[in-house]
């Protein structure tokens, strides 16, 4: 810059078109990684059949996640891809709405009813446990609240919603998110192994994954790694859990407001509506239309496949956004509380699911 000149800061205004265009590289990256995972799975299967070899069937889900993990933790994600990679949650939710085509409303009500009962029990166990652990490990109270919400309800979404409602620090939110995501990543590999070892049915496993895995994308992936049928149930169970988010966040907001450490919630109904995950309504709508035979069999098949393609992009995103170095840098204590709590929650929910499986013949 020449001497005597004044640097005037440029304010960048981003148009909707420009913002949309900025998404394209990252979305293409998600698609490429997802498709590569599918290609590897199919290639191994074809090779095994051609050579009469019994090769292990590693689902495309796992390949997509692992490829994403390797990319993210080796070469990293260049800035140009980041906006598009961040859309993985959008693809997840679009996939869940379209997944409604594979559920008759009666199934939704039955499985949803069982899930809701187990979710309420799981919430009670998770909150009590995490609060206790938070005290034992001397974590800051608001951090404990965030970890409780993240492990009981809905991972990252719940933590972000609660952070805003209880005026928690950014640092605490980062700790909680990092801990929950790290444990979620481990769950992806551990859950299917345990499920197979216990010979869980698709429904029972799906219910367990949906109740115990915190992040919706990871719960979907954990289900899909087991089987297509398990993925359906996992999504339904997780969606039921997600629907509770408004009530839980409101509860915490009122608690911290009563202690003078958060703003009062004046309009509770508006608050609940604002926090309610709207994609659940979309899922119910599509399920209703499918039940009413608005779509023929071929059209239902197309909708189900669109859901699978959307999830493909999601799973690539799950791997890409898991940065092990960043997680490690967050510190061990929140992770320790999260890990111990999650282990206990996973154990309790497994026991509940095994009982429910017997009682309802899942």
């Amino acid at each position, binding site marked *: 810059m020449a001497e005597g000149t004044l640097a005037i800061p440029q304010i960048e205004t981003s148009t909707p078109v420009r913002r949309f265009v900025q998404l394209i590289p990252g979305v293409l990256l998600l698609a490429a990684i997802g498709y590569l995972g599918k290609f590897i799975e199919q290639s191994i299967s074809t090779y095994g059949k051609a050579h009469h070899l019994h090769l292990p069937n590693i689902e495309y889900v796992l390949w997509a996640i692992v490829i994403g993990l390797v990319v993210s933790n080796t070469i990293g994600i260049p*800035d140009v891809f*980041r*906006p598009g990679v*961040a*859309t993985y*949650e*959008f693809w*997840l*939710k*679009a996939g*869940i*709405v*379209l997944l409604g*085509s594979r559920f008759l409303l009666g199934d939704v009500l039955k499985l949803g009813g069982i899930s809701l009962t187990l979710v309420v029990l799981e919430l009670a166990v998770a909150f009590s446990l995490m609060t206790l652990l938070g005290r034992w490990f001397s974590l800051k109270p608001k951090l404990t609240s965030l970890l409780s919400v993240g492990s009981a309800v809905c991972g990252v*979404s719940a933590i*972000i919603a609660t952070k805003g409602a209880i005026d928690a620090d*950014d640092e605490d939110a*980062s700790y909680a998110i990092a801990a929950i995501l790290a444990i979620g990543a481990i769950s992806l590999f551990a859950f299917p192994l345990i499920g197979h070892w216990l010979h869980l049915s698709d429904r029972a496993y799906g219910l367990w994954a949906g109740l115990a895995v915190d992040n919706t994308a990871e719960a979907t992936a954990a289900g899909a790694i087991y089987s297509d049928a398990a993925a359906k149930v996992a999504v339904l169970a997780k969606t039921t859990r997600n629907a509770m988010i408004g009530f839980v966040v409101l509860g915490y907001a009122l608690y911290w407001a009563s202690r003078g450490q958060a703003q009062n919630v004046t309009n509770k109904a508006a608050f609940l509506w604002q926090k309610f*995950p*709207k*994609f659940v*309504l*979309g899922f119910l*709508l*599509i399920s209703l*239309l499918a039940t009413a035979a*608005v*779509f023929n069999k*071929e*059209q239902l*098949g*197309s*909708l*189900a*496949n*669109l859901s*699978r*393609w959307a999830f493909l992009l999601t799973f690539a995103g799950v791997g890409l956004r898991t940065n092990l170095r*960043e997680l490690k840098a967050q510190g061990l204590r929140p992770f320790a509380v999260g890990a111990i709590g999650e282990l206990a929650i996973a154990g309790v929910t497994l026991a509940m699911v095994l009982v429910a499986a017997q009682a309802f013949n899942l």
Partner: protein
Amino acid sequence: MPKQQYEAHAGRFQLSTDVWAVITAIALAVLVKFGVLPRVPW
């Protein structure tokens, strides 16, 4: 992009994600219903 900015960006996007996801899924369902979108393979 600095980490916090990236997270803030993702968080901002996430606020309207639900609505956009529902709109997109319903739009796709409409395209499938009226035959605009041909059979989708997997």
